[in-house]
């Protein structure tokens, strides 16, 4: 499904601020995989996502998605196949436009000069009601009036409106209060299962990392240092993860947002 071969990226090469953000990363993601990624601050978790989504081009290596070489494809072209959520709930939607207008852009139905049809509006209403937040009755409200949790749920729906081949979740519940975070996470699980999406999720919550999905990656200093799947993973607990990290890197896992429980 997704295949990274020897991806490297160095920011500000040749200056004092040189930062080797990704060092020779290779990764094979199978169709339908749900992979959680953990790691310390600056480990390169978001950078991998940026590389996959095309926010920058990598210095070397190749990226294949569903057999297609997307290494040098512009970001907006890849966006057809890749859905993405950020930690900041404000990043995924346009605050000055209504819920309906935001959805219309994400749905991308019809030609450039088409308007939102009644049928499409009905479809939006149905889909919104699945979120259980009452947004289906507020379709003419500007998105800027929604709470962070509502906006993140809306963004999740927009990113998966046309089921993408790959869904990238970059700590997408980290900025939400615990109750809302749980709700958005449940929605995520639901949508991923229903559409059988292939999904990568960065999380700061070790327990979530083990509970969700079928594979867990640990990153440090631009490298994937541990890759747990299937049987072995099901026997792991949070403490094991911390020990594994210490053994691999020689220091304690250090993430200022890390939640162990």
């Amino acid at each position: 499904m997704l295949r990274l071969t020897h991806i490297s990226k160095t920011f500000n090469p040749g200056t004092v601020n040189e930062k080797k953000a990704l060092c020779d990363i290779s990764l094979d993601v199978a169709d339908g995989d749900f992979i959680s990624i953990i790691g310390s601050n600056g480990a390169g978790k978001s950078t991998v996502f940026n590389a996959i989504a095309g926010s920058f081009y990598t210095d070397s290596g190749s990226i294949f998605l569903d057999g297609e070489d997307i290494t040098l494809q512009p970001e907006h072209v890849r966006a057809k196949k890749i859905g993405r959520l950020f930690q900041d709930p404000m990043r995924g939607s346009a605050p000055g436009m209504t819920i309906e207008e935001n959805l219309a852009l994400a749905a991308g139905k019809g030609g450039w000069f088409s308007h939102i049809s009644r049928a499409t509006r009905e479809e939006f209403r149905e889909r919104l009601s699945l979120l259980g937040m009452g947004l289906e009755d507020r379709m003419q409200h500007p998105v800027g009036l929604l709470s962070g949790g509502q906006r993140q749920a809306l963004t999740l729906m927009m990113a998966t409106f046309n089921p993408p081949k790959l869904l990238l979740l970059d700590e997408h519940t980290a900025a939400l209060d615990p109750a809302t975070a749980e709700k958005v996470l449940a929605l995520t699980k639901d949508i991923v299962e229903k559409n059988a999406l292939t999904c990568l999720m960065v999380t700061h919550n070790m327990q979530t990392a083990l509970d969700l999905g079928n594979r867990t990656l640990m990153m440090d200093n631009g490298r994937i240092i541990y890759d747990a799947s299937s049987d072995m993973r099901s026997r792991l607990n949070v403490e094991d993860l911390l020990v594994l990290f210490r053994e691999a890197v020689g220091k304690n896992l250090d993430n200022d947002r890390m939640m162990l429980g």
Partner: protein
Amino acid sequence: MASILQTALELGLISSLTVLALFLSYSMLNVCDLSTDGCFTLGAVVGAVVALAGHPYLSLPAAMGAGMLSGLVTALLQTKMGIDSLLSGIIVNTGLYSINIAVMGGASLLNMNKTETVFTKLKALLKSTPLSGTYKTVVALIAVALVIAFLTWFLKTRLGLAIRATGNNPDMVRSSSINPAFTTIVGLCISNSFTALSGCLLAQSQKSVNIDIGSGMVTIALASLLIGRAFAGRGGIARKACGAVIGAIIFRLVYAAALRFHMPAFMLKLVSSVIVIIAIAGPYLKSRYPEFHRRMTHRAGKEEK
């Protein structure tokens, strides 16, 4: 008095086309298009030259096409060449000065006293009807109505939504698989065609064009836009667009009133600058007031009870 009002209405309507252009570029795309002055003049001179050549109707699309081209250059500079958006407007504006004089064949003034224009055509048409005295207003009104109708329709299409989102959250446009560079280019082409149409109509209504016809237009239009925003308040596209037109008319009315009270005509541009400053700095200063108040009431070095 009536004629002063009518002149204000007429000028307000004609310049409101530029205001609507800024409504698209400034309010929607979030690009402050500083090529507006030059593009306004470009529309005026192209329209004048084509009208002088004996094509009064063709002059309008010709001016709009020229404006579109100018918008295309401004947009390409900022989306494809890494030039800052304000700077690309200024650069195009400067370049247009030479182009405008070149279009006028090296002159800096063209006279259209005996030239057939859309205004003279309509004047002939309305002869001996009750509207005969207001033919200029009628032409401007038709143009404004068409542009507003277009904008209300266009900004609800998928492309229009994408243009609005570009000014609102370009990240989101990209994740909707649309290239923000593309939407910026389309938006600026359209807005500049309106600016040029505005210039073309002004030149034809006053039967002459000089190289300075557009100078200060961007500030005047911005002032009108901000006045209109205060009047229209919240609402849909049509309401906001009408607000922009009303803003342009109010601006001209206030200016006409000021002239009555013996304000010299050359003060126009200072007035427009002050209005823009008040409209943009006002809300900012208001938001800073609590801090100012805190500073004034805090007695330094003393413990509060």
